[in-house]
């Protein structure tokens, strides 16, 4: 029972923060899956659990339509440019943290390849990226356990200082 109350209140916070942002943005627009992009990841007090909540919510079918509704005027977001692209990476990292950890440890996998693609790393550079994440597995996952955003930041920094990957210009 307590667990349920906690979950519901957490989802409540989630909805409120969404509504607040939609107002602030003043642009009732939707991209597919755009609801996620509007989350203020930096300000969210407990980023680690967002993934589980969104998943809980979409799993029981009661929430997915709010977050991922089509052309619904109330749950919009801006979907253009850097803001959105960056949040897509963070959302993906937060929602797939466990699968990403596994892929990083084994140095390959579809979640890692997808993250690399979202980060704009070209296909021919991805093997080097995979090897780097395996090399730095422990520090990346430690960062990720604090917050997925921190992990993405650590990844970007690692790419920027990597002798080969740094040559590649990728979308930040």
């Amino acid at each position, binding site marked *: 029972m307590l*667990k349920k109350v906690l979950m*519901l209140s957490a*989802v409540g916070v989630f909805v409120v923060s969404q509504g607040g942002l939609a107002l602030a943005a003043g642009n*009732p*627009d*939707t*991209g*597919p*899956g755009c609801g*996620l992009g509007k989350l203020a990841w930096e300000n969210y007090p407990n980023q680690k659990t967002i993934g*589980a909540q*969104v*998943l*809980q919510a*979409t*799993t*029981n*079918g*009661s*929430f*997915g*339509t709010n*977050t*991922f*509704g*089509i*052309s*619904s*005027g109330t749950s919009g977001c801006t*979907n*253009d440019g850097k803001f959105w692209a960056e949040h897509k990476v963070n959302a*993906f990292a937060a*929602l*797939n943290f*466990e*699968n990403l*950890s*596994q892929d*990083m*440890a*084994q*140095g*390959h996998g*579809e*979640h890692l*390849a*997808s993250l690399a*693609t*979202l980060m704009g790393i070209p*296909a021919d550079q991805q093997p080097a990226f995979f*090897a780097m994440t*395996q*090399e730095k*597995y*422990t520090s990346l*996952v430690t960062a990720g356990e604090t917050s997925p955003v921190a992990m993405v930041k650590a990844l970007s920094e690692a790419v920027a200082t990597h002798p080969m990957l740094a040559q590649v210009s990728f979308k930040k």
Partner: protein
Amino acid sequence: MGFRFHRLGPHGRFRYLWFPLLVAIFMQAGSPSGWAALPIDVSYLNELIDRANEAHLADEREWHVLLHYRPTLTGGIKSMQDDPGFFLSPDGKTDSYAELAATLTKFFSDDLVGRSKQPAQCAFVARYYWLNERLQFDERRLPPQPCERFIRWFDEFNAAAITVIFPVGFMNNPSSMFGHTFLRVDGKEQTPQTRILAYTINYAAQVPPDAGLDYAIKGIFGAYPGYFSTIPYYLKVQEYRDIDNRDIWEYRLNLTPLQVRRLLMHTWEMGNAYFDYFFFGENCAYHILSLLEAAEPSIPLLDRFPLYTIPVDTIRLLRESGLVGEAVSRPSRSTLVRRKRASMTAEERTWFDRLIRNPAELEGDGFRALSPDQQAFVLETASDYLLQHSAAGGAEGAPFRDKNRTILRARSGLKVTSRDVPVEPYIKQPDLGHGTSRVGAGAGWRNHRAFEEVNIRAAYHDLLDPEKGFTPDAQIEFLSVALRHYHDESQARIERFTPINILSLAPMDSLSRAPSWKVNVGMQTIRHNGCALCSNGVGSAGIGAAAETQLFKREVYFAFAEAEANYSRAYEERHRVGGGGTVGMLADMTDRWKVMLSGSYLKYALGETSDDIRWFVGSRYTLSQNWALRLEYNHRDHDNDVVLSVQAYF
């Protein structure tokens, strides 16, 4: 607008001249501010409505598909759509001409309509596209709206193709027993490795989070609204593959770029819409088909499902319609673990079993004596197992997550790529399984009386049906009836009637300890207390356990504790209630031949005090995908029944 127009002509084509007139009046009355700036070209609107009516566009299939009109029993039409905002005419739900005229009228306005609050041209972009195609709008007289929101949304998909996704049935959640279907919009730059980044188009009932047992009833009778949403595929993969442990089948559709575009345009319109969700009829699979009808209206799909829609039947229909291309599977996490573990050497398996309990053992010399390649494989499989058990999240998952960290840290230290094991899902391509309805005809003897029997079952699968494409060791029977004709007294009767009979066997092993269970409600014919053929109502439920061996081919053993209530005039006091147990086994003798044995003992303490010993021996031989032979022997208390039948699936 609370008044109704009388029909003036045979097709009522003249009555819609009223619309522009009314619009003009409202404009004068000082409605939304945008209007004054946009003088509406009433004569062009009238011309368009006239041309549409002359061509009877409102009777055309495309229009009916876009508005979700279905014929009614009284010869009219009615849209399945239940959101009033989906219609631009107050009579739109039942009047296709009124809706078409109102739609054309609204195209001249930048008024925000529907739940999505956009100009009509943008909110109903598929209608606009089709009407423009048919009427060739003059852009100077009917200026097109920019529809930036739609364009951004559409571009974000970067769509190249559509794939139907089918997570197979899931016995531990009644609402998922038949599986689920949704669409994935495959991007142009997508690779097999980045499929999870694609968006899906999903239709689901919106159930309040506090829904209790009434959920089932309301879900069946349409009390919940169903909405479309575009959830990223990686979340759906987590939901079905990681949490529910369901194998997923992905069917790529052969659609042209234009068909893909039409499908997405109509999906965008669905942002203004909801349908009342009916678990059996207008369910996920049904409305996914309705989107595909919008992609290609010339292929009728919904007509094939007038009463109920089983997801796998919709995939079979798509295949028959030539729309299905390549099919690939995405095995569930538990399938991954089982297949990988089965491929291990005895030594590797021992280490796997030890590490999932105590990962610290990997530091010992024993494990490090394996080759790096073997170590990597064992560690990866152990991680899969631990992820499987932590997937549901929360406090229960925490110990598994911690163990997984230790395992993965060790794995990251091994700079090798582990061997690639092909992982076959346990459920073979579902659309290649037998049809979900069944008829049978047979003959036999009951206590030396000869009979013929015909039987029919609406859905879906029992333990002896050919298992290809179905969840192994699971039985779901809905609406099954058997009629018999007994020779000697020329007596015909309803021998059995089974509204619901569900049974799930979950073989236990070192990886899983799930219980088996069964529920049955129905009527059968018994011989009891001097009544030779008496109808007997039965309700029963049981819980038990199952185990599996592979001595011969594959054998499953099961045992149930169960409670049962009977109602029949054959009993003293007309009823009896009791409990007991069943043990049995299922065995695959060859790929085509399957045998089932079971025995039960039940003791009835309430009503008529009595007991019952039953035996069943059944044998099935598969002739082809949709044909099978059966020989079944039933014994209960001085009552012996043997029947040989041929079964056809459709």
